């Protein structure tokens, strides 16, 4: 009897604790996210919860996608967002209500790939788009695409760049943009173009420069320009200017890796146009190391107001400029100090030269011209 009474007395508190546990577990915040289907018609995503609003899983965007302010999107592990040639991406975030696109549970995803069209990203925070690794970007643009960024933050791009501009794409990095935790902020092909605003913030970025991709050089045709405003350029390897014209504007800084060179070949043309206040610079990315200089064959090189540093070669017949076959070299007002070659200019065969030897003779480290 006493036992029965004790059990009865315990029943109520046990029930109460049990109910409390159920209520507490039920009350845990659950995700209200909706899974977004492939986009085949104009789609608008609105903010509808305090947490994650949408989940993307290898999303194909074949029409206009508008993401309104405050939307929070998670992308499944290793998934990507593909904007096709018919697609268009418009992000309408604000400084107060940013749009967030990140990997699910903090895991890496493949980023956004844009093939064509004009796209606008405002008030966006892109995170953890790093699963493709090196030589890729959190955002990859191709074809004739144009991408406008304003108040965009790209973080955790891992070993890749924040933005890879391939093909003939044009990236306009507007005010308020920030890039952090990336190998490099930008990577571009020659044909593409990146305009960078003055207030771009870089934090914890291994290379604070624009990587120039050497991948697509063989298919280059026409005229390409490297802008002098903004970040310095880093060539990913030997630059081959073959069959096209490359103009480098005043103020541009080109860095090269140790042992690489700039080869101007087969009707290629290089025009380097610095100014007295904004000379163009060519140097090694590691100031303690050296690169191999210019190799010109059946091509034309015009250099004015330029600083060339850190060139050295094991082959004594190579100079800062090594010229072969039919080529033209016009060089003016160029600083060739801190180079370790035997000659400034080395020629093999019939060469048209127009160097300012008086200028060149100032550099007592080397001979001005060596002819073989």
């Amino acid at each position: 009897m006493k036992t029965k009474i004790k059990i009865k007395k315990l029943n109520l508190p046990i029930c109460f604790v049990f109910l409390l546990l159920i209520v507490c577990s039920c009350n845990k915040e659950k995700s209200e996210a909706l899974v977004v289907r492939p986009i085949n018609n104009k789609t608008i995503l609105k903010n509808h919860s305090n947490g994650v609003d949408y989940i993307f899983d290898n999303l194909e965007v074949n029409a206009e996608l508008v993401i309104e302010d405050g939307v929070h999107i998670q992308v499944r592990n290793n998934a990507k967002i593909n904007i096709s040639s018919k697609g268009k991406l418009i992000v309408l975030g604000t400084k107060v209500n940013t749009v967030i696109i990140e990997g699910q549970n903090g895991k890496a995803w493949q980023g956004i790939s844009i093939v064509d069209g004009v796209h606008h990203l405002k008030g966006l925070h892109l995170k953890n788009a790093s699963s493709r690794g090196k030589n890729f970007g959190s955002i990859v643009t191709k074809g004739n695409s144009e991408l406008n960024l304003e108040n965009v933050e790209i973080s955790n791009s891992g070993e890749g760049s924040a933005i890879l501009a391939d093909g003939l794409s044009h990236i306009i990095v507007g005010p308020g943009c920030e890039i952090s935790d990336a190998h490099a902020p930008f990577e571009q092909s020659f044909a593409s173009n990146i305009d960078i605003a003055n207030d771009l913030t870089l934090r914890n970025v291994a290379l604070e420069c624009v990587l120039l991709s050497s991948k697509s050089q063989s298919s280059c045709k026409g005229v390409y320009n490297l802008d002098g405003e903004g970040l310095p350029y880093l060539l990913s390897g030997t630059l081959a200017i073959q069959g096209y014209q490359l103009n480098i504007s005043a103020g541009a800084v080109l860095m090269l890796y140790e042992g690489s060179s700039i080869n101007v070949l087969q009707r290629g043309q290089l025009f380097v146009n610095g100014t007295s206040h904004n000379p163009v610079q060519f140097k090694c990315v590691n100031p303690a190391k050296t690169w191999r200089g210019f190799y010109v064959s059946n091509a034309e090189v015009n250099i004015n107001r330029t600083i060339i540093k850190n060139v050295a070669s094991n082959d004594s017949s190579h100079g800062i400029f090594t010229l072969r076959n039919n080529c033209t070299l016009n060089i003016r007002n160029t600083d060739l100090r801190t180079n370790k070659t035997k000659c400034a200019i080395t020629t093999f065969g019939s060469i048209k030269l127009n160097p300012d030897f008086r200028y060149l003779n100032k550099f007592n480290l080397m001979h001005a011209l060596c002819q073989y």
Partner: protein
Amino acid sequence: MSVLKFKNICIMFCVTSSLISLEAQTNFGLGISNYSSSFAVQINPAEAGRMKHHWFISPFSINSNIHNNYLALNLPYSPYRILNRSMGDQYKDNNGVPFRNWKWVSRNGSVDKMNLYGSVRIQGPAIFVRKKNFAFGISQEVNIFSKATGVPIHLVNHQLKVLQEGKSNIEFSDDIYAQLTKTNDIQVLQNAYNSINLTLSRNFELKNDRNLSFGLTYKIINSLGGVGLQVKSDGLNLVDSTKDLKFSAPTVRFTEYYARNNKLKAHGRGAMDIGFVYTYRNKETLRRAKYLKRHTDYKVKVGMSILDIGNLIYTRTISTSMESKEDLGLSILEQMQNGDPQEIFNELQTDNANTEPNLVTIYGDRLNVGLPTRLMAHLDFQLIKRFYLNILVTKGLRKKSVDNLYSPSLFQITPRFESRFFEIGLPVSIREVRPTITQGVTLRAFNFFISTQNIVPFFKPKKISEASVFFGVQFSNLPGRAFRMKYGYRKFSKKGCSKF
């Protein structure tokens, strides 16, 4: 109250209610019975304050109905045989499973658009407690609503043909193409929600032992999801008698409503029922029961309530809408005069191939689905001891739009007999969907309630265009001594509990 006064009240009530166009949810006369407290509270929360019981618990009740104005069943056996498969063997296949015959489906030739409504309400558990003139209750319910209105009958016939022949590639008939030239507003909406209802009621004792009771039920709603579809078009309009006809291309909107995952967090303002009940007693019905310490009988009871004031709120929605960028034009008037409807439609498609529809999908839009707000008025009159006449009228207060739930309205007269352990009512109803008079029956035996608004098909299963059933269980401190002695409830003395 004299017979003349009663007649006057009834006439006024009937005349007033007949002037109101009918559009709201069905209900049963059983709900107003003096012993059906949990169900009466569903119709009018003020009933809780004036109920006989000290407490009652309803573990379960279900109320379901479906009606339409176009299709009807002509069964060769009574519908109740479907439940236990007791129909003849000639109506079963080789495996003993009852088969269906499409010939049993008949059509109402006097309508050109089909309207269908259906609802299921499952309530329980419900617990109510009354202390003197206050009553408080808590209950839980799940509601499922469906409606399909304005559906052209040719489209329904086409779909039946697809089901009947088992083919999905049956071509549209000329009638369907011809329907495209007319004004259409097809609405299909299905939605469900569950709610926890908190009821508070207060009874005021007035002079001459009359009562006025007010009640309020607040519903904490959790939307469970649903779908909605609207197809709207203005048909074919003559722009200029000498040249052009304008075809107003349809606007289509399809919406998916998804339930929230965080169910315990309040979402929106919920819903509310409010009502009042006035009880009149004459000398004959004045009897204050010692056990209950209140008058339990009445001569006339009049009540009015507004139910389901509120909306279902959805934030997890996917809504796709299609609109043509411009109306389609047809410049060849002569062809229109003698042309085949299908050929005309094909030509419209060809001539206007460049007119692409504007298709937009919106995720996460905050959408409201209006609950079936309705006004209910009831009059309950005791003719002689234990015999009552109940008149119940409902009217919908919602607009007939695709974003609102509603059920067709009702006018119902129910004569009933009620006693401590047994009750029977015979509701006669007229409904908006298909304005025919139906005869139902309501039964209570001890703690169990069962009723239907259409009993005739059980005996004569022809032209069945609607079905409804109500079943519930309720336990309370009533009916009385026999009940208490059976269950060992000995708190009250013999004297205090003899009469109710």
